[in-house]
């Protein structure tokens, strides 16, 4: 359990003041397969943090660990100074109850590659669902707020459409609005545009760019190097469960120091 505690950094458990997300030696295995092999990184508030890397390198897994959809096997992961999934008392860790985990997930929005909109609800109902069910917001209030959010992602006129009646790009924008409805302090994007036709990618990236400008902290797994370069504040290249290289996006993308980064970038650029 105590792997990867960096002695140079402050005491684990005390939180780290400013970091929105902090990973210290995060390990994750599925059975015998070790997918994350000690991830250390720090995401500051209001930062747009891009995560790139080849398929199977563990990007999605890491993202899912942040809102405890996956359990970390070793190391420590903090969101806003609080340990994810556990409570620390002395040097013992106690697993959080499902309800406590759910409470923390309210503050973390997630956008999936395959949208995962609720197909039996209209766009508006998708956006209203969590505020009403989780926060107990009145339906009228939730409806009004959902309308505003749909307008913000440019879909005010599609409020009554079911997901099957929307294009992929529109669905993904509804999914972003749905996550924003919970007023999260952190947004996770898992390849939000890679299931989209090229001409639909732009609309989704525009929404994400606006969101970044509004000061949202975002972790973005993406293959859109243009987006990373323009909007990203920092970028991490992951391969085989480790962070290979990190730095400012322009720096890493134009002058990759590591050979593995170079060969990956030469393939995707």
């Amino acid at each position, binding site marked *: 359990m105590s792997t990867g505690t960096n002695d140079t950094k402050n005491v684990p458990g005390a939180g780290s003041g400013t970091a929105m997300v902090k990973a210290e030696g995060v390990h994750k295995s599925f059975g015998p397969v070790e997918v994350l092999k000690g991830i250390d990184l720090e995401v500051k508030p209001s930062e747009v943090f891009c995560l790139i890397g080849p398929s199977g390198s563990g990007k999605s897994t890491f993202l899912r660990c942040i*809102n405890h*959809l996956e359990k970390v096997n070793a190391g420590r992961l903090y969101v806003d100074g609080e340990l994810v999934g556990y409570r620390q008392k002395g040097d013992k860790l106690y697993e959080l109850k*499902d*309800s406590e985990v*759910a*409470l923390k*997930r*309210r503050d*973390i*929005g*997630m956008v*999936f590659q*395959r949208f*995962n*909109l*609720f*197909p*039996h*609800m*209209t766009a508006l109902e998708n956006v209203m*669902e*969590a505020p009403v*069910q*989780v926060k107990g917001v009145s339906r009228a209030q939730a409806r009004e707020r959902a309308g505003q959010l749909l307008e913000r992602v440019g879909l005010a006129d599609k409020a009554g459409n*079911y*997901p*099957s*009646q929307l294009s992929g790009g529109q669905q993904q924008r509804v*999914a972003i609005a*749905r*996550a924003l409805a*919970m007023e999260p302090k952190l947004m996770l994007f898992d390849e939000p545009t890679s299931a989209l036709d090229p001409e639909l990618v732009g609309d989704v990236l525009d929404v994400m760019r606006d969101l970044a400008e509004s000061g949202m902290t975002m972790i973005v797994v993406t293959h859109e190097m243009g987006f990373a370069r323009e909007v990203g504040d920092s970028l991490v290249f992951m391969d085989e469960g480790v962070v290979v290289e990190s730095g400012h996006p322009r720096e890493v993308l134009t002058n990759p120091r590591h050979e593995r980064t170079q060969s990956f970038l030469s393939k995707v650029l």
Partner: protein
Amino acid sequence: MNDFKKTDSSADTPAAGPEAIRAIPVRHYGRYVAAVVALGIFGLLVWAFANGDINWGAIPDYFFNDRILKGVRETLVLTFLSMLIGIVGGVVLAVMRLSKNPVTSSIAWFYIWFFRGTPVLVQLFVWFNLGFVFEYVNLGPIYKDQWADFMTPFLTALLGLGLNEAAYMAEICRAGLLSVDEGQTEASHALGMSHGKTLRRIVIPQAMRVIVPPTGNEVINMLKTTSLVAAVQYPELLRFSQDIGTTSGATVEMLFLAAAWYLIMTSVLSVGQYYVERYYARGSSRALPPTPIQKIKANVLSLSNRSGGGAKA
């Protein structure tokens, strides 16, 4: 056909586009032959029954007989209550079966194995005869009575049918729950929804699309299976019809009468099923399927269009 008709009428005014296609449709001679043969056989059957020794008049005479109506009522009540037990039990068993706890999932597995693996008639007889095994029903201070007083024919019928049905419904519900994409649960959890809310608001409504059609079949099956409970002394439609048949001497006629009532009831249920399915299909396809009335309208329209076009040609 429709489209041709449309271009047809617009052909009166000089059309700017290319000339409308007027092709002679393919003739399906095989279909005509098959239809003639089928009609012939049907005619023979009607002739045979019309000339058999059947007192058709007895059927309308007894159709709304008090005892028949009582039987219909009993059949419907029994169907409704057994299905209620079946559905509630089925949902519980399905959730148990899918639970991560090996004890609960094994219990559910065993239940389903047992009740699906034995004939419902045998189960009914077992419930009926349990009085020979247990003299008393003893629930401690709450309830104590002789088994025979507790286990009325009605309760025997209800438990026999309902508990058996729960095993089938469990499999149907399980298939429904499994049919919902895991991404849905994940998205719901990521929004901070609890397990219970996720199941109730997100998973079950989507599972219903898979659950409803076979459940409709189960209801219709159940309506017919209730006729078995005559064997445990509970009177329903079939039993009353048979009784009237013996006393009035119109045995076969009363069976026809019962069959007619079963048909009426199953038909009404099928219509109900259609609308329930339509309700749960919302969001799954771009447009809702038409109601039967809309379908009939559309067919009539296209027929009149077709004959109109034919007259012209």
